[in-house]
């Protein structure tokens, strides 16, 4: 298991190449990549603020809860903070398990909790100024399924 909160870019392809491999009991690997999306076509950059100390702690707790709920061979969370450009990777999650159901469910669980329970805040700057990204009701609602 690895949790990383970092300003530096990460290499999604390289992370996927190695993750969860080598154990003979791994049959399913699921990975998720979050990318800075430009809904308006006018996004210049995104600033990700976080709460140093609490961020690592919150993500680690979420990851440990996932390992209690599902039998995972491995788990990875990388989340960036700082200044990002449209199209840049912002975060990733990966899970490895015997069967696909556990790998998919654990990855979705991690994503749902990271969205609403890890202390990150996004600010978008476009050609018309800056605004904080509002939390979406559906992200909060997504937690109810777990």
């Amino acid at each position, binding site marked *: 298991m690895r949790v990383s909160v970092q300003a530096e870019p990460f290499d999604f392809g390289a992370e996927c190449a190695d993750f969860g491999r080598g154990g003979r009991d791994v049959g399913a690997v699921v990975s998720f990549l979050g990318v800075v999306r430009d809904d308006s076509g006018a996004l210049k950059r995104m600033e990700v*603020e976080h709460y140093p100390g609490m961020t690592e702690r919150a993500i680690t707790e979420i990851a440990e809860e996932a390992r209690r709920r599902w039998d995972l061979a491995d788990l990875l969370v990388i989340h960036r903070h700082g200044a990002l450009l449209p199209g840049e990777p912002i975060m990733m999650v990966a899970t490895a398990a015997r069967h696909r159901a556990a790998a998919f469910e654990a990855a979705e669980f991690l994503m749902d909790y990271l969205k609403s329970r890890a*202390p990150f*805040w996004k600010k978008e700057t476009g050609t018309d100024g800056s605004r904080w990204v509002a939390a979406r009701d559906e992200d*909060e609602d997504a937690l109810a399924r777990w």
Partner: protein
Amino acid sequence: MITVLYFAWVRERIGLPRERIESSAKTVAELVEELKAREERYAAAFADLKALRVALDQELADFTAPLAGVREIAFFPPMTGG
């Protein structure tokens, strides 16, 4: 003395990321009332508590939570990670 942290637009409205304050507040809600009474920028930041979240010593908490023993309190909007 307690360390108070502000993030995102809460930080911007109050105009600073952290401060150390002396308070006799027993709960988060009491501390919020003390802060709101200080200056307009605090009143603006804490105008709608439903739009805010609070963490005590880096764990999410409620506004009714007691402050006894707490060293660090943080106020911020709903999180938008992922």
